[in-house]
């Protein structure tokens, strides 16, 4: 299998889907001539021309809202926001226009829209660093993908583009250069199917994107001490594969959610409530949430490191449960 970076995998998915379906268009700030500020869309203008790949004014509200309008009339727009935080800046358009335009018109419209939103990472400050997934997961009408590997980055994006519903597709900035095997051709990752990235008995860790990477590193270290953790990667947050998490927790009896979002009402809250509702008899060990302690994300890297869950934090949390 060829190896590709996460960033290349996204580019491949875009190119393949644009080739397959001429209704797919791609736009955003600096995506065409420059190939995107993170260079993810490099070369697509040359391949598909300025009618299908174009740069836009700095007008996030139109970027998203026009995606809704265009999707409702038969195009399949893929919109790049430069930073995932801007789903809040275009709040009306993301939550009401994309999330509800179909509903409020009784199903008369279909909105096959994908908003690509580079999340997480560091050094860009409070308004350019967030993982605003919980906002999306709380809102009705918006599907949500959080790919963690190059293979999923490609296969979830291809799937997202083919779905007839709006998808907020979070691509993690720190994963862009991650390399991994990506199967050739028509591979689609279904929405709503979590994957167990590592099997174990000691505790279930739920994590995705950079927190999955950190969890896997911590797991290696724990394994050397004879502690085998099970790691579930949800892959999509809406739909959300509750069953796989519950099954895993039934086996391990404990759960740690590691996420890069603010702790209160982060995705871990939903998982906690879910377990309380569905897995109470099996929970004989503590439930833990590792997340950002309800503060904005600062700019200085060492302050970011002080609040984002680290490999050490994960290692310690597992030890506390497993010991």
């Amino acid at each position, binding site marked *: 299998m060829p190896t590709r970076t996460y960033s290349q995998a996204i580019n491949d998915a875009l190119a393949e889907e644009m080739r397959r379906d001429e209704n797919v268009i791609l736009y955003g700030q600096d995506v065409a001539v420059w190939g995107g500020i993170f260079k993810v869309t490099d070369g697509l203008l040359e391949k598909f021309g300025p009618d299908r790949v174009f740069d836009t004014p700095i007008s996030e509200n*139109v970027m998203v809202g*026009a995606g809704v309008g265009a999707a*409702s009339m*038969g*195009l399949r727009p893929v919109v790049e926001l430069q930073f995932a935080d801007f789903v809040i800046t275009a709040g009306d358009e993301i939550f009401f226009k994309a999330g509800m*335009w179909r509903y409020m*018109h009784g199903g*008369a419209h279909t909105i096959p829209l994908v908003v690509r939103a580079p999340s997480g990472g560091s050094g860009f400050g409070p308004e350019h660093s967030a993982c605003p997934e919980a906002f999306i997961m709380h809102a009705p009408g918006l599907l949500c993908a959080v790919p963690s590997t190059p293979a999923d980055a490609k296969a979830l994006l291809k799937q997202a583009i083919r779905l007839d519903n709006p998808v907020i597709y979070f691509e993690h900035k720190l994963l862009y250069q991650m390399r991994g095997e990506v199967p050739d051709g028509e591979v689609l990752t279904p929405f709503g199917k979590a994957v167990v990235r590592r099997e174990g008995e000691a505790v279930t860790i739920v994590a995705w994107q950079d927190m999955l990477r950190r969890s896997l590193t911590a797991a290696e270290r724990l394994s050397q001490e004879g502690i085998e953790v099970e790691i579930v990667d949800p892959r999509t947050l809406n739909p959300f594969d509750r069953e796989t998490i519950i099954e895993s927790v039934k086996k391990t009896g404990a759960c740690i959610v590691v996420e890069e979002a603010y702790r209160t009402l982060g995705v871990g809250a939903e998982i906690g409530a879910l377990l309380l509702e569905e897995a109470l008899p099996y929970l004989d060990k503590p439930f833990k949430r590792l997340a950002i302690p309800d503060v904005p994300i600062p700019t200085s890297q060492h302050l970011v490191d002080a609040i984002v869950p680290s490999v050490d934090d994960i290692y310690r949390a597992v030890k506390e449960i497993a010991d």
Partner: protein
Amino acid sequence: MDQEQLVKVFTSAVLARRFEAKIVELAMAGELPPSLHVGAGQEVAQIAAIEALRPDDYILYGHRGVAYMVARGVSLADMLADMAGKEGATSRGKGGVMHVVDVPKGILGESGTLGGSFVVSVGVGMALKRKQPDTVVTYFFGDGTANRGPFHEALNWAAVQKLPCVYFCENNGFAISMPTSRSTAVENIADRAAGYNVPGVVVDGSDPVAVYEVMEQAVARARAGHGPTLIEAKVTRLQGHYVADQQEYRTDRNAVAEKDPLPKLQQTLCDRDILTQADVDDIQADADRQIEAAVAAMRAAPLLAPEVALQDVYA
């Protein structure tokens, strides 16, 4: 606009006016929710503008009445069902009278947050340009709405990409209780066109022929790929912001009836011997018949099943 079209505008305006009056009556009686923002006084402008469109052109509209839908021939019964939450409702109980939709008739819908359709209109324009060249989308919005940010982003974007969009502002001098002069720094909303390098036209919204003509030009420009036009029709809101509004804040409220364009239009049609009084009576009677039939159909329709609330979130 030829005579036939003028009669058509009049006929639709009569129907819209009477239909809205019936809705208010039913709302007062508690049979429908009091959610209509009556369009009385603005229908002539709305309908004349729509007359300048082709049937395959599209419309996004604001909350000011149902004349847009009436002009496009949307079923009156279905609109009543929208309000009553009954079978037949175009938005299936989700949107009420605010979100009437009929895509085959070119009625794309409304954003509940004011001006939300500015951004949607840009996308519709993008799609039309690529998939249905030669068709246009017109967005009808209020003067107050023109102070929201999406106005700006959309006008600029539509202009720079030369999208087939027409922006039709109905300036009725108020946003609920707020006079335009206190909310808006500029005399005419159309003056803002200069900021986007597009034509900005002010027109008397009580004059259907004038409205039709400026729309014709705007539509031709949009069809030709030259981009949007910002039209501002000066209109009068004859009634309150919504059904229950007593308009204490409004000093001109007893004088507005004189500004009603509908009797003026009727007078013109009679003066120019286009219609006789008998014709007018027929038009009114026919409107009432349609309305009565619609009310009967709405009354006969069953309530939407409760589980409909859970549907239509996802395709």
